[in-house]
């Protein structure tokens, strides 16, 4: 007999029950949405604020199969689905947002390396730590006018916004991890004739790596937030650009699928980082 008490730490729902329980909140949300949508459509059949399933489907179809409005591309009559997909609105927006996202992700790598140095080499620590402690508290969004001067309004200001927003937090986080590596290990490595860089990269960096990846996973959402902020302020393509444009005329039928799509993309990036972490560092338990 399964123990059904929710306040018993020893109680464990069986597999089926656990699956069902984790589905409950999803079902409740979908149910509430549908109820609201149906109620609003009963009152106003053309309601666009809470689109019906039918409207959502049409929205998804136009996002996935039709080119963005500003594009000149007209699909030939016999175009295959793949052909249409490759010229579609969502493809174009995902590609341009994805490019910005991954460039900023790449730009974070040197900062992680710097953080290892800050945590390990006292001279680096003296030079950088206080600055980043201060800079971490700066609200990057309020610096926008300066970013516009320095980076223009094209790609680089958006990428800079992400990097400036996320890098200081990452640096402080990684510095903490480096400092948490037991001093005995470092001393031991030196006694085994390791040089400074052996210690930094082969002893410390290697062992904080899985934590760094986990920290990055937690920072994916702030990165996306900054990307969205940048694209909503000035852009001519991108996922958040489309959402901003659609909001002008309440195109919730396209916005909702876009929001879910972004959630899925973030989940996939997070999932692949987790998988990579597990493959590369099977010894790491957390």
């Amino acid at each position, binding site marked *: 007999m399964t123990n059904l008490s929710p*306040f018993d730490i020893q109680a464990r729902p069986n597999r089926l029950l656990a699956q069902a329980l984790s589905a409950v909140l999803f079902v409740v949300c979908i149910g509430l949405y549908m109820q609201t949508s149906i109620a609003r459509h009963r009152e106003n059949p053309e309601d666009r604020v809470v689109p019906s399933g039918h409207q959502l489907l049409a929205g998804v179809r136009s996002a996935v199969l039709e080119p963005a409005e500003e594009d000149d591309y007209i699909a030939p009559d016999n175009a295959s689905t793949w052909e249409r997909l490759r010229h579609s609105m969502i493809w174009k927006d995902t590609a341009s947002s994805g490019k910005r996202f991954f460039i900023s992700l790449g730009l974070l790598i040197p900062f992680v390396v710097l953080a290892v140095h800050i945590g390990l080499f006292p001279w680096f620590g003296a030079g950088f730590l206080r600055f980043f402690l201060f800079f971490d508290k700066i609200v990057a969004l309020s610096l926008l006018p300066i970013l516009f001067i320095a980076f223009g309004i094209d790609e680089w200001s958006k990428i800079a916004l992400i990097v400036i927003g996320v890098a200081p937090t990452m640096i402080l986080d990684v510095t903490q991890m480096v400092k948490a590596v037991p001093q005995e290990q470092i001393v031991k490595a030196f006694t085994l004739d390791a040089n400074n860089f052996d210690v930094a990269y082969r002893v410390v960096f290697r062992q904080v790596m899985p934590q760094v990846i986990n920290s990055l996973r937690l920072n994916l959402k702030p990165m996306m937030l900054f990307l969205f902020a940048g694209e909503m302020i000035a852009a001519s393509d991108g996922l958040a650009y489309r959402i*901003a444009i659609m909001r002008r005329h309440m*195109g919730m*039928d396209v916005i909702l699928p876009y929001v879910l799509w972004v959630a899925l993309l973030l989940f996939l990036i997070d999932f692949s980082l987790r998988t990579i972490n597990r493959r590369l560092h099977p010894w790491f338990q957390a």
Partner: protein
Amino acid sequence: MQSKRLGIVSLLACSLTLLVGSLNAVTADAQAPTFTVGWSVYAGWNPYFYMQKSGILKKWADKYGIAIKVQRFDYAASLDSFVAKNIDACAMTNMEALDMPAAAGVDSTAIIVGDYSNGNDAVLVRDNLTFQTLPGKPIMLVQKTVSEYLLERGMVLNGQQSQLGKLHLINTSDADIVAAFLNNRSNQAVVTWKPLVSQIVADKSVHSIFDSSKIPGEILDLMVVRTEVLNTPNGQKFAKALTAAWYETIQQVAAGQSNALKYSAAASGDSVESYKEQLRTTALFASPKSAVDFADGTDVQKKMDLVRQFCFTHGLLGQGIHSVDDVAIAYPNGTVQGNKARVRLRFNSAYMQAAEQGKL
């Protein structure tokens, strides 16, 4: 045991809040019926702030035995609230009246035609760009608003219709457009509205090549009420009180009464000087007669036709709308633009007419 007690306490708290909430609702019902008007910062709408502060609105509301609340919003938020039916009336342009509430199936009626933009919106360029050389250059603007409409009209009126597809638009938030444009000399063109226009042309290297005074009467500023509200007896009182208060207010503003100007300027945080400058490029229909003449004329239909075609070709009427006629507009003289069975936006001059005849 502890957790159970906690649960009971929170349950009690919840039900208490509910109870208080419903009590509030009951007492509110017992009072005069309340209506809410939303407005946002714009030269032609700032007087709503004065209307409320000066007590003019309350005077008229009391006369009709109702209560009217006035609430300031960001423009986009005011439209969202109106479409979501959280507010009963809202100040908006003719374009948004068509592509927000009307296209979303919320039957709406414009009861006051307040003014039209007569230079408030402008296309500004650097480096002596012209409409001939504009295509291909980055143009900053808030897309899908009257700014984009103005730009397209400028292109068309300058014989560049065929080049419309080559315009390279950068959607820029109005909160940042001044800083983003001025801070970088490689930005060559921007379309925006006052007072942002005034801030940008303060830079001597920028000048205007087109503004809304070249398309008079196409960018209208309206007071829009939900038709279902207007169709109730109390709703009609609301419309009457609002219209009466508006004309009393706007005549004071037009006459340059100092308090009226001071409060209207303060509504957007502008100086009185700057507000007066904005009023010069705003063609106010200060007398109800001028507004009625405009709304009852045929000119307004021609201008609305340009606007609705623009909205349709830019997909602003929504994914499900396959013909421009599916969001039809009805005019005071009975003309309907579009499918008669699908009238969503109505111009109603009856209240302005009553104001003209002093029957309010």
